[in-house]
């Protein structure tokens, strides 16, 4: 613990000092530090790792979104991949068939996913727990089957040649260039998620998670906030989907949205700790890298992922986020006992 303290304390102090300048300052610094990552990666390894970084960004967006509805609001949803698919397909269709540029099709994709989020969220007004899980799983799987059997949505061939975005002559046509778009979206996504968590809306979500009846007694419009949580998380999923669809190969297929993607997504959230934003981000990074490094054991992957999910739920129900929280809470108490309040943010 002392080693960890020695590493973490200067970091937290630096973050504290930066936040004192402006609350966005640490975010900007991290963003600027992460921007040249593709050059480091392609210099040290090769382009494939840049692609991996892109995938991680997309999954971070998805995890952060899922955490809002699942972690903050406590609604069990398993159909998140369906929303991701809706975002991807609608954005791709708008740009393929209407010839709209990315900057038009992206918001449309996000909005369509948001509307779909209302539909997925509607059962949550009347259902809880297992019922809700069933309803969302049914909706998510219906979306995939719809895509798989409808020619317009690119049934078995998938949608090919989705144009890559460009801004003033700068075309995001390689993984390195697309990374700038993704890291920007991801940083904004994480920051917004923190803002939501700290706002009255986020506190209402958490009140619903802790005790629905008590929340409604305290004047929180429970159905409205549940729906809002679903819509926000659907917007995240739609953004991730649209960004995925326009990524340079410009190709989506219904096999990108199967149950295995859902399992990976769930594993990320569970590993990171349900309801912990940084935990979710770390979970997304770890799981994507492990998923990628074990590609040669393709046939054993579901076994590995499923088993680690089961064991995590059994023995480490709060995930990595729980470990982080415990560390900071311990630090805070030690600090309070020593009569000073540094360290913990």
């Amino acid at each position, binding site marked *: 613990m002392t080693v960890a303290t020695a590493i973490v304390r200067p970091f937290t102090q630096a973050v504290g000092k930066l936040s004192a300048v402006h609350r966005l300052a640490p975010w900007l610094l991290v963003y600027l530090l992460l921007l040249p990552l593709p050059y480091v990666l392609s210099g040290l390894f090769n382009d494939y790792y840049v692609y991996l970084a892109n995938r991680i960004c997309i999954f971070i967006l998805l995890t952060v979104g899922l955490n809002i509805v699942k972690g903050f609001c406590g609604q069990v949803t398993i159909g998140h991949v369906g929303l991701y698919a809706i975002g991807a397909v609608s954005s791709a269709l708008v740009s393929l068939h209407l010839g709209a540029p990315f900057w038009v099709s992206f918001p449309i994709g996000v909005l369509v996913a948001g509307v779909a989020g209302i539909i997925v969220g509607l059962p949550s007004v009347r*259902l809880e727990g297992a019922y809700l899980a069933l309803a969302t799983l049914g909706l998510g*799987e219906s979306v995939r089957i719809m895509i798989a059997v409808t020619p317009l949505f690119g049934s078995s061939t998938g949608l090919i040649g989705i144009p890559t975005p460009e801004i003033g002559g700068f075309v995001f046509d390689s993984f390195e260039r697309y990374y700038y778009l993704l890291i920007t979206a991801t940083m904004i996504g994480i920051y917004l998620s923190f803002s939501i968590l700290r706002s009255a809306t986020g506190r209402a979500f958490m009140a619903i998670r802790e005790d629905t009846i008590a929340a409604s007694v305290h004047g929180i419009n429970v159905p409205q906030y549940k729906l809002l949580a679903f819509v926000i998380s659907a917007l995240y999923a739609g953004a991730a989907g649209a960004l995925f669809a326009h990524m340079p190969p410009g190709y989506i297929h219904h096999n990108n949205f199967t149950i295995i993607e859902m399992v990976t997504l769930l594993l990320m959230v569970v590993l990171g700790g349900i309801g912990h934003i940084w935990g979710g981000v770390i979970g997304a990074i770890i799981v994507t890298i492990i998923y990628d490094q074990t590609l040669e054991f393709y046939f054993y992957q579901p076994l590995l992922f499923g088993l680690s999910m089961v064991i995590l739920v059994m023995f480490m129900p709060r995930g990595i986020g729980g470990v982080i929280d415990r560390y900071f809470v311990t630090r805070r108490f030690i600090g309070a006992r020593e009569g000073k309040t540094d360290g913990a943010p």
Partner: protein
Amino acid sequence: MDFDFSSLFAFILFGLTIGVVYGIVALGISLIYSGLDIVHFAHGEIYMFGAFFGLVFSEQVGVPYPLALLSAMICAGVLGIVIERVFYRRLTRAGGGYTVAGMGMIICGFGMSVVLQNIAFLIWGADAEPFHVDLGEPYQFGDISLPKSYALTAVMALFLMAALHFFLVRTKLGLAVRAVAHNKDIAFLMGINVPLMISLIFGLACALAAAAGTLIGPMQSVQVEMGYLMLMKAFAAAVVGGFGSLPGAIVGGLLVGIFENLGAAYISPSHKDIYAFLLLILVLMIKPSGLFGVEARVKA
């Protein structure tokens, strides 16, 4: 094109037979739900394992079909008890329902379903295996011919339901199971071995799923990915009938089977698998308690 009543009748008949199978799986899910307050997301995979057990017993061991059915049920029951003892016990002890532990149980079952599917894939491969059972000439109803395996399925399903009903209502062990389903603490005070009863519930539910798998084997082929869709349809059946209600599960299964077959016949066959979900979502939105269910527990 005038309306063809005999083909409508045929669709309903096939819908009924497949619906009975949905009903059996839904029965298991309902049993677990009413007993433990948890939804078992790996039940589809137990069903798939049951089908493979039946296949192995009837093709490789070479026992007659009814015996293969029985053996598959026993094997899957044991498998279910082992899974429950090893993995779920820690979570069910913490209390199921709608707590955080309930969410853990959903995730855990989900993970377990992936694990079981992968294990089956590693053992039996991804190919669809035909399940040959020679039962003789199909029955003839006018110009509809009904294969005997369908008839056998319906009869077996009715028998299993009757047996389960008899067990739960007429025997002392069944009374204990119902007591545990009603209230575990009071059942414990009455001297009932609650953990054993929970294992029994799990074993029974898994045996039912295996029976469904072995029964459906001769109609369709047996393959690794069959569990997932069946799970969804059985869930739909259980919800339509009312979650936790045993007669409701059967009626729900029949409804889902008929709905799906009619939809495939008159709307679009390629969307066949969506109709069950549509029915599920419709029922969840309009009447979450289902046809026979007690009030769905919705807080606030």
